[in-house]
């Protein structure tokens, strides 16, 4: 159940961790043992009431365990000073809990100030973190939480949790109360951020899709925080341990697997592109010699600028390419999942998702053929695995009969 690769050093180790709330017979968390490897996102997922939140809150001792041990980076913190312990652990909750009477800068500066950083270092850190979560420090530093949108508040919540550069972060349904579109964007941004900062993260959710998307490893829990399966998302989708896991994943496991492959893992399709200064006639010539129904106009840095269709070009009337057609849409980055790309391309005018790198430079496109190809590959892999089981079984049968 608690297998970890030999190379992975557990950053957090829970040993026989148990919590029985006063007045309750059954423990909410019953002798849970779990290793959380350094630098990974481990998702605790399970039906409501399974004890996942209690488990997480015992790590920073918001809830005190009844028995068992918590080891943080090899050090037993079960009885350490809770306030000191919590300053080493970033904490993000669903309701965010920004301090409404403090500015964004003051919110983020809370822990660094507690740790006694000097004012200059604190100010620099605040600006750095705001930039990291893609908010302009000059604009947002002095604002109050009520002046931000829900998505912006959650970014500040994440920035605040990262403020003292903790090794470990605990996140309790951090994107649960945000509208689906913003949630998707925040999830992607968070993955991009995690790729840079490599924190050890314990992430609680009840949403298996979020778990598959966000997790390096998923612990599927049931009542009493019993670990039913603790594995990578791939293995959980392809080899669910039992019916409980199968039920919990629900239908559409193969569609969910589109969440596991990322755009950077597949070969991109090419699309006719022209530089910004090209004349409409020239663009038309390019378009005639290529299969698509539109050309993508790129600016001097190679970033998508406009989509210009054949009809737009014919009615250009001497206007420049950047004045006709439409804004680039359906743009995804290489770390986006195929599921994201599929979502984008379905609604896109020219049925492709445009892929750009971190600097916004055009890389290629994803079309429906690429996605089907990816699904076909997954399925043939599956079949091969299934066949292998079959072959071994018949081998065994054969040897018995012979």
């Amino acid at each position: 159940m608690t297998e970890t690769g030999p190379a992975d050093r557990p950053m957090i180790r829970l040993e026989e961790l148990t919590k029985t709330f006063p007045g309750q017979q059954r423990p909410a968390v019953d002798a849970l043992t779990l290793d959380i490897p350094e630098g990974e996102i481990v998702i605790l997922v399970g039906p409501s009431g399974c004890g996942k939140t209690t488990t997480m809150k015992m790590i920073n001792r918001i809830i005190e365990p009844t028995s068992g041990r918590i080891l943080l980076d090899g050090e037993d913190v079960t009885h350490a000073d809770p306030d000191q312990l919590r300053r080493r652990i970033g904490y993000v909750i669903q309701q965010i809990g920004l301090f409404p009477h403090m500015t964004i800068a003051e919110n983020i500066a809370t822990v660094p100030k507690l740790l006694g950083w000097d004012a200059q270092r604190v100010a620099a850190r605040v600006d750095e973190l705001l930039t990291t979560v893609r908010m302009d420090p000059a604009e947002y530093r002095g604002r109050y939480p009520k002046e931000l949108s829900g998505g912006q508040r959650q970014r500040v919540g994440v920035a605040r949790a990262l403020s003292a550069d903790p090794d470990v972060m605990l996140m309790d349904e951090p994107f649960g109360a945000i509208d689906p579109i913003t949630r998707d964007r925040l999830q992607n941004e968070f993955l991009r951020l995690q790729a840079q900062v490599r924190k050890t993260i314990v992430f609680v959710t009840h949403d298996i899709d979020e778990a598959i998307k966000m997790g390096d490893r998923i612990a599927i829990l049931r009542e009493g925080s019993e670990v039913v399966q603790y594995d990578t998302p791939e293995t959980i989708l392809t080899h669910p341990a039992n019916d409980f896991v199968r039920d919990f994943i629900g239908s559409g496991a193969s569609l969910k697997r589109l969440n596991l492959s990322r755009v950077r893992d597949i070969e991109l399709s090419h699309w006719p592109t022209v530089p910004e200064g090209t004349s409409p006639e020239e663009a038309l010539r390019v378009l005639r010699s290529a299969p698509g129904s539109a050309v993508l106009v790129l600016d001097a840095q190679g970033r998508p600028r406009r989509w210009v269709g054949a009809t737009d070009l014919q009615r250009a009337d001497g206007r420049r390419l950047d004045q006709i057609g439409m804004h680039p849409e359906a743009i995804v980055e290489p770390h986006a999942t195929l599921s994201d790309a599929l979502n984008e391309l379905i609604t896109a005018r020219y049925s492709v998702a445009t892929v750009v790198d971190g600097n916004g430079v055009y890389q290629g496109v994803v079309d429906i053929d690429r996605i089907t190809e990816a699904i076909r590959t997954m399925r043939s892999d599956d079949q091969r695995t299934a066949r292998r089981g079959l072959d071994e079984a018949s081998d065994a049968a054969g040897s018995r009969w012979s």
Partner: protein
Amino acid sequence: MTASTDWATVRPPGTDPARGGRWWPWIGRLALPVVLALVLLALWLYVGSQELDSIEARSLTAETIGETAARHVALTAVSTVLVVALAVPLGILLTRPFTRRYRGLLLTVANIGQAVPTIGLLALLAVAFFFLGFWAAVVGLVAYAVLPVLRNTMVGLEGVDPAVLEAGKGMGLSGRQVLRRLELPLAVPVILAGIRTALVINVGTATLAAYINGGGLGTLIVAGFSTNRFLVSLTGAVLTAVLALLVDHLAGIAEDVLKPKGL
């Protein structure tokens, strides 16, 4: 106050409040003092137009009126300061988890303080304990005004968003830091509203101090009644009313100014 709150919420994020926006509330805030000044002027003109006999003339000198008014303000101020010093810490204590058991009991005691009429309490202090004068009046006022401040302190502290407290605790703020940096500032608007109520109650009730030789504007009212001089009672009553309205108004401004930004 409502007006200023709306201003704060309505203005689009990021824009500094317009110059007009910053000054507009102050124009509203000046209206009431102007009206009160006009009332006092009318009173002065009316009293000045009357023939005063010797009793009236003695009661209505600028010196007597000034003294009684100052005494009244002193009674109100001292009792309110004591109420705040007593009720706010008590309210904090009663919202800590370890005092949950005593919460009901102490609230009942505070309720009794407000249920018993102040005049009865003052009479009791005077008759049973021979306790008279300024400080006896203060005791009566404090007993009466503790409840609103205590109750508002508790309501204010309990009304703080639990998510904010959990976030604070989860970040490693100690219990005391959570109280000082999060709970109290966030409860300030509600606590101030309680203090404002206590102030207004005290201004009105302080007139009763006259019965136990505690001084204040009540002296004019009581003296006017006992000597059958309507003009003296009227002066005392109008001055008390003007003072109550002014105190309420100033307290309202204090609420606005002291309210933490961002709420």
